[in-house]
């Protein structure tokens, strides 16, 4: 199993009447709600928390990309990842990911990911999301019906740049480059493992299987609601006679809260979970799905029905009980969480779990408390769920053996002599 501690970096200062007074947390979020000075401490705390998780035995620490979004403060995940690459030593840096169709030219992603892989000593797990309609269409102006074609082309360019060792010309429809010649190049050869966050489209299932990418479903709906979608992925795997059904072909994001007891979990975390689900996920339905963003095939397949926006927003007002019972969150004592995690991992057949453990406006101490309990009392018991696939390393990073530490310059007292200056 691979556990990645993931932080969306939500803005924790949305007012209590946000839902009533504002129509959307995303795209046209009221910019007056952002306070740059408050963000200074916030960013640093969030990065500290990622590093903290990295010190507790999580396999990866993860970041992602959102734009104009009050629950995601990372328009550029690579900036955060660069900081993490310097300040951590062993943990995988999971960038899930860079929306490759949004970069001009997309070669930029091949370069930046190569840099991250070099700085981290081969610890990068790369992600290539298409990106949500909010991010790609409404914030970044991409034409919905052409986005997927542009995305495929960007993927082709990046992969060729990583694979080919001679300069080549790339005559794409969306990108034309006369001299593609990647420099620097990633440590992991031919390239870092690639995960594709998807939202249930058949084309994305096939795309992952064609390229040996891991498919991950990053919803906030939890594992009960995610079952239908992941099942349709595994059905597709079977339909296509894929050579193996390794659980590492799949990943899932799950909100997790651990405390000493179930009651304590509710007492400590209910407020923050409610903040996230009831304030942060308040998205204007008109931004959820620009016409042409989803393919006809996907709409017709009906995979979307489970998250067709209910009246009043993407998520209705939910109580703690409803969220626990509905599987939106896995919360409780270490034993409760272990049981439900097992249900989730087996039920969805996922080898990669993206653990959402800082939630909404949770203070850092609570996130640390929950994270440590999970790392010490839950994670070790979940390690061997798929022993027959333990050797599958296609979807995880392969760091180089002898990695340096950041801050390894010699002491000032040695510099003069070592530099060869006169005594």
């Amino acid at each position, binding site marked *: 199993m691979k556990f990645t501690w993931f932080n969306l970096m939500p803005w924790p200062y949305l007012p209590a009447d946000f839902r009533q007074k504002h129509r959307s947390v995303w*795209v046209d979020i009221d910019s007056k709600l952002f306070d740059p000075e408050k963000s200074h401490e916030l960013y640093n705390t969030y990065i500290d928390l990622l590093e903290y998780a990295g010190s507790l035995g999580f396999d990866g620490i993860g970041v992602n990309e959102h734009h104009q979004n009050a629950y995601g403060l990372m328009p550029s995940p690579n900036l955060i990842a660069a900081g993490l690459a310097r300040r951590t030593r062993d943990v995988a840096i999971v960038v899930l990911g860079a929306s490759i169709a949004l970069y001009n030219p997309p070669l930029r992603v091949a370069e930046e990911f190569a840099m991250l892989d070099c700085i981290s000593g081969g610890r990068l797990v790369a992600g290539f999301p298409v990106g949500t309609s909010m991010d790609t*269409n*409404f914030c970044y*102006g991409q*034409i*919905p*019906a*052409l986005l997927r*074609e542009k995305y495929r082309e960007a993927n082709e360019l990046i992969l060729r740049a990583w694979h080919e060792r001679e300069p080549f010309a790339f005559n794409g*429809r969306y990108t034309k480059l006369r001299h593609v010649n990647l420099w620097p190049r990633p440590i992991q050869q031919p390239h870092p493992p690639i995960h594709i966050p998807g939202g249930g489209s058949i084309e994305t299932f096939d795309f992952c299987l064609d390229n040996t990418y891991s498919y991950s479903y990053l919803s906030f709906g939890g594992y009960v609601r995610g079952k239908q979608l992941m099942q349709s992925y595994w059905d597709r795997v079977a339909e296509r006679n894929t050579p193996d059904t390794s659980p590492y072909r799949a990943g899932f994001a799950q909100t997790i809260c651990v405390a000493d007891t179930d009651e304590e979990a509710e007492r400590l975390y209910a407020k923050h979970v409610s903040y996230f689900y009831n304030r942060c996920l308040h998205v*204007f*339905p*008109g*931004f959820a*799905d*620009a*016409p*042409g*963003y*989803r*393919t*006809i095939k996907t*709409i*017709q397949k*009906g995979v*979307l*029905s489970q998250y*067709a926006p209910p009246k009043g927003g993407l998520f209705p007002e939910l109580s703690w009980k409803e969220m626990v019972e509905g599987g939106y969150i896995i919360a409780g004592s270490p034993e409760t969480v272990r049981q439900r995690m097992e249900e989730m991992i087996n039920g969805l057949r996922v080898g990669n779990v993206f653990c959402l453990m800082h939630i909404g406006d949770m203070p850092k101490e609570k996130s640390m408390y929950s994270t440590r309990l999970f790392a010490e009392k839950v994670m070790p018991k979940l390690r061997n769920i798929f022993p027959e696939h333990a050797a599958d390393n296609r979807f995880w990073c392969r760091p180089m053996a002898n990695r340096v530490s950041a801050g390894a310059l010699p002491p000032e007292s040695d510099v003069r002599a070592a530099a060869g200056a006169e005594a």
Partner: protein
Amino acid sequence: MSAPQPAPRPKAPPMELKTIQTPHVPVRYYEGGQGQPLIFLHGAGGLDLDLGFLGALAEKFHVYAPLMPGYGDSEECAELRDILDFTLHTWDVVAELGLKDPILVGFSMGGMIASEMAAVASGDVSRLALIAPAGLWLDDCPIPDIFSLLPYQLPPYLFHDAVAGAKIMSAGGDMSDPKFLQGFLVQAARQLGAAGKIMFPIPDRGLSSRLYRIKAKTILIWGQSDKLIPPVYAQAFQQGIANAELVLIPEAGHVVAFEKPQDVIRAISRLA
């Protein structure tokens, strides 16, 4: 740009639905009437709201109203990606129909395409009617983002009488019925998905720099209370096209041909 969902069709128009082959894709089109040939290009909402108007128009002209690929029951066309593709495709349609210099009429998105057609082949279009055309952008008067509007938010932008408009649009079906919702989403993906190729996120693909090429006698027809593409855009078109006359129709919104069909037909007839 008109309603993105089917409205009840007016009583049987004297129009026939036919198919022709073009180099890219088979094209469905309505044909009816006698007289001078006239091509009508629909808006982003498709032809549903226009059929009554076209029926009346066919009493004076030989009307051809092709569906853009993806609209109605017509086949989609992945090869059409940008405004030049749409412009040349529509010229292909005119050629396949065997028409020479028909009266070219376009509404909203169709007006944008018609303007481009008249600009790229200025010698082939001598009469042009643009009904509340898209294609320009004025920073001082931004056009609403139709791609993020929910169906219930559309009527005030489309109709002079928003209450009546809402009734017409909601007669399409019930959004809480999953089957209807799926059909609606498929139609939106096909139609507005295609429209988005030339109109998302801003319906400006550089037409303003090409308007000067239009040599046709041009009538601009606008609903006085158009809230989607307000009449100030008419002035921008008039400034760009040398030989353009404006007919402003009172008590009409964006779907002026639906709300005031006879006034629009009278205005078009000035080209005959």
